[in-house]
């Protein structure tokens, strides 16, 4: 069993590269976009607000799997073609931006009005107030929910195997079929557990960092 494990390990690890790249790039895109979207959801410009609300509803109201299939197989029918990884990255970024936008919107809402007023009396511009007073406080508030989504993202990334992308999940499935054994899937589980375990610890650490004030 150990031997079996060792033979599939290189394939699983190469799958992990795809998984981690998708994970990292999705976060890199969707966190800043989520913040922008959250600010947009609070704007007084009605058309922008409604458009963003519709977007968030669409993304959170349909399965990510469906969105993946639509981006990769659906968009080409209207002439927009992405290669596999870009399609996956696009679908994931669009989807996670919507979730992060909702999280940040809630966080922004929980900043007391008095903080905005204190900033206004000190003549900070709305932009400076957002950047220096609101966003830093929002991060602390949303960190736990943000962490949940980040861990979901690791697991959701396994959905890309239906596009034929060689992630950990797909590597495991191929090995399983070739070896006619479930051991590779145990390997897959171990890898996901390790990844989410490391993330859980890092997020705890980050939360502690933000505990420098109450």
């Amino acid at each position, binding site marked *: 069993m150990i031997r079996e494990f060792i033979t599939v390990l290189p394939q699983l690890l190469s799958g992990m590269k795809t998984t981690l790249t998708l994970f990292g790039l999705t976060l890199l895109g969707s966190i800043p976009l989520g913040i922008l979207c959250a600010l947009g959801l609070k704007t007084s410009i009605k058309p922008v607000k409604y458009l963003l609300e519709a977007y968030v509803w669409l993304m959170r109201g349909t399965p990510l799997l469906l969105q993946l299939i639509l981006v990769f197989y659906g968009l080409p029918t209207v002439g927009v073609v992405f290669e596999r990884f870009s399609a996956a990255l696009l679908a994931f970024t669009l989807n996670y931006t919507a979730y992060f936008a909702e999280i940040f919107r809630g966080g922004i809402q929980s900043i*007391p009005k*008095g*903080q905005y*007023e*204190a*900033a*206004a*009396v*000190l*003549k*900070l*511009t709305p932009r*400076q107030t957002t950047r*220096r*007073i609101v966003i*830093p*406080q929002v991060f*602390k508030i949303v960190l736990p929910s943000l962490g949940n989504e980040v861990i979901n993202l690791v697991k959701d990334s396994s959905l890309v195997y239906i596009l034929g992308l060689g992630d950990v999940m797909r590597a495991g499935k191929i090995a399983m079929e070739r070896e006619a054994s479930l051991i590779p899937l145990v390997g897959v589980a171990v890898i996901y557990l390790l990844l989410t375990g490391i993330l859980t610890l890092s997020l705890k650490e980050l939360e502690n960092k933000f505990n*420098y*004030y*109450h």
Partner: protein
Amino acid sequence: MLTLRQIDKSFGDKQVIHQLNLTVEKGELLAVVGASGGGKTTLLRLLTGLEKADRGEFLMDGLPFYPDKGNKKNQLVGLVFQDFQLFPHLTIQENLLLAPSLVKEEKPEAYLAKSEKLAKELSIQDLLALYPYQLSGGQKQRVAIARAMMMSPSILAYDEPTSALDPNLKKQVEELILTLKKQGMTQIVVTHDWDFAQDIADRVFELTDLV
């Protein structure tokens, strides 16, 4: 000298301030008293631009000004909030320096020196590295005063400066306000505490309830 002429302010159909005329001399310490709901906080919010007057004029030394339109360089009225509203994620020092560093067109050394001077005067020099949650009510208030003073306002206004403090701290605030007065600071103190008002103020102005 600050002059308010015929100021009106309503919320919906509730008129809170009606044809208010008021003059505050340079260096004067004015106490504003009145019943709860009488519009004291609203008056301070009008002066600092947090609310917009429906009608009337604000003059500083005879020249009109518009509190709700930002005037970056010369902040006219600074405000010490009733609940201080320090920025919790910033150290005391950062609370003092944030606004001047973003808004004022001065050299960093200039406002750094100013913050040190103010910190000493307000006895908060040992607190600069701490965060607001680590401070007592009285300490927070002194930081709030210092933060407002960092912007060199022509007038410093306080909303109920004694309401969050226990009685022995009241005395301290009183002394502090009187010290600032000696330095020539023009101050408006909103309070529901008549004794406090009469103790410290050059003049007591009563905002009457309109309903």
